[in-house]
């Protein structure tokens, strides 16, 4: 083979943040194959040090504009764990519902705006406006619901201010919860249409498999998003669990020369977090309607195709809607009412973990006797996925070369692979740069 390939994707588009794909093939031999993350660290762990426990979640929610609900929840859970704060069953359920809102909102954004253009053969969502208007309008209608669903419980979707240690600062009315439930029921036509849209392009999802370890929160009673223990499933189906407090022994962060972000690994060279990891770990606890969709798509665990992460997100979209309807029923039937905040009972160190759209998220804080933060640690799912992305790329490139794909096809295949992980590398600045018209 005498193939020469040079792929240099600087700041891959349609991912959140900056990442580069660099491939250099000379005479058929791979000389360089790197997933690079060049972004600067943001020092949130330093920012929370010396802050009162009531302030910490407000700061860490700013880590991410998409996963700010998840960061808030992981943060208050870690704080509650450290300070011995026991939340009520109603709070647990309301927080699960707002977690569903975030995953729904983010998955809709990823499926429709970031992945769909590849499957429709468009460079971005913009050219789809005239050609697939109904699809784009539907996506925005669904995103709007996700936004209002999260805002109702969180006060606002981006950086929620009602979710605080001990419970909620404010509550929606019973009528508002009933209205939310009805809106989720009324979403069915859009869910059906979304499934049809995905089915129409399902044959364009690349087939590529690389068995790996999959890590997610897991629970015996529900498809874990808000709470659970750490679980991994190995390629042979073996599962193992760890308490969240032992997260460091499962994540084993390390540094690599080509990246400013830390990588992670557990039992294998890398592991995957995210919707596919949750699907592979917790399939049996999906809502029956979500399982029905997976069956229609012939999608079942264990699935080793990382491109199917986006399809797992679609399954979770259905699950989040249906499970939220169930939870709203339970909350309303149990005599919904605003509750007083639960109070701290001790000081010390505590951990919290939730499943954000891109995977398992850990927060860990220490507090002194005055409730002041003495230190923190956050492990973000995208960082946990970098190692798996690298190994996927290393496995995929030889297959694409063997299939005699040209440079552009290889580049697209690699871009789509990284996008499938829905990486959220960091939220950078959002300023405008303009010139005044004369």
């Amino acid at each position, binding site marked *: 083979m005498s193939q020469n390939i040079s792929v240099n994707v600087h700041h891959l588009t349609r991912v959140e943040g900056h990442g580069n794909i660099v491939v250099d093939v000379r005479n058929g031999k791979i000389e360089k194959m790197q997933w690079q993350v060049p972004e600067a660290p943001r020092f949130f762990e330093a920012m929370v040090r010396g802050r009162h426990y009531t302030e910490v979640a407000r700061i860490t929610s700013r880590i991410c504009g998409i996963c700010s609900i998840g960061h808030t929840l992981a943060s208050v859970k870690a704080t509650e764990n450290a300070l011995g704060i026991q939340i009520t069953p109603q709070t647990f359920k309301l927080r699960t519902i707002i977690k569903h809102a975030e995953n729904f909102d983010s998955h809709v954004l990823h499926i429709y705006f970031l992945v769909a253009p590849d499957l429709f053969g468009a460079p971005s*969502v913009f050219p789809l*406006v005239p050609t697939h208007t109904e699809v784009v309008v539907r996506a*925005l209608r669904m995103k709007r619901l996700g936004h*209002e669903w999260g805002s109702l419980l969180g006060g606002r979707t981006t950086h929620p201010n009602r979710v605080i240690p001990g419970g909620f600062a404010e509550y929606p009315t019973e009528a508002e919860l009933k209205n939310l439930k009805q809106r989720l029921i009324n979403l069915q036509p859009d869910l059906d249409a979304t499934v049809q849209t995905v089915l129409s392009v399902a044959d364009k999802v690349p087939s590529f498999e690389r068995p790996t370890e999959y890590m997610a929160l897991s629970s015996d009673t529900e498809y874990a998003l808000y709470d659970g223990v750490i679980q991994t499933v190995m390629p042979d189906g073996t599962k193992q669990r760890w308490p969240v407090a032992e997260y460091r022994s499962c994540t084993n962060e390390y540094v690599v020369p080509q990246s400013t972000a830390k990588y992670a690994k557990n039992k294998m060279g890398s592991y995957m977090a995210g919707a596919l990891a949750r699907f592979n770990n917790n399939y049996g606890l999906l809502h029956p309607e979500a399982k029905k969709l997976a069956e229609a798509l012939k999608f079942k665990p264990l699935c080793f195709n990382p491109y199917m992460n986006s399809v797992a997100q679609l399954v979770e979209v259905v699950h989040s809607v249906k499970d939220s309807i169930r939870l709203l029923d339970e909350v309303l039937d149990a005599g919904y009412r605003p509750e007083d905040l639960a109070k701290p009972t001790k000081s010390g160190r505590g951990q919290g973990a939730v499943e954000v759209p891109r995977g398992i998220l850990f927060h860990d804080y220490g507090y002194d006797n005055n409730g002041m933060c003495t230190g923190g640690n956050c492990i973000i799912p995208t960082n946990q996925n970098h190692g798996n992305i690298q190994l996927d790329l290393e496995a995929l490139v030889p297959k694409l070369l063997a299939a005699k794909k040209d440079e552009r096809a290889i580049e697209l295949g690699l871009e789509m692979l990284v996008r499938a992980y829905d990486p959220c590398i960091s939220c950078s600045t959002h*300023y*405008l740069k*303009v010139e005044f018209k004369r």
Partner: protein
Amino acid sequence: MRYIIGIGNYSMADDSIGLRIVEHIIQNGLDKGFEAVDIADEGTRLLFYLKYETEKIVLIDAVDLGLAAGEYRLFEPKDVETTKETQELTTHEGDVLKILEFARNLSYPVPLITILGIQPGNLEPGMELSPALQERFDIYLKVALEEIRKDG
């Protein structure tokens, strides 16, 4: 309905100016006759405030106007052209001008929008505004409140 909307990244120093003004308005109960909204770094959420009943929006954002740090301008989207190379429609490096163009192409009702653009001095990670913006914070607040209350 009228809205003051802040956009930006709270943890990237002066990029957060819009969010901090909105936060100040809410914390001090100044949101009378309008709603103050923090859409943070999810620029697509601007679309959800483009409604027939929306009378006016004042959007506060850090804007590279080629001025000294802390200086500001009030302008409408039609007055300017974006010169920023951004990625596609993601929340990262969002460009509200492109989101407004997207909205128009989808026939969203785009109301009167005034942008309070503030020249940033520091866009590195950090939870504080640069001194130039801190000193003028009350001026930006006054300008935003006057603008949202103005007819037309």
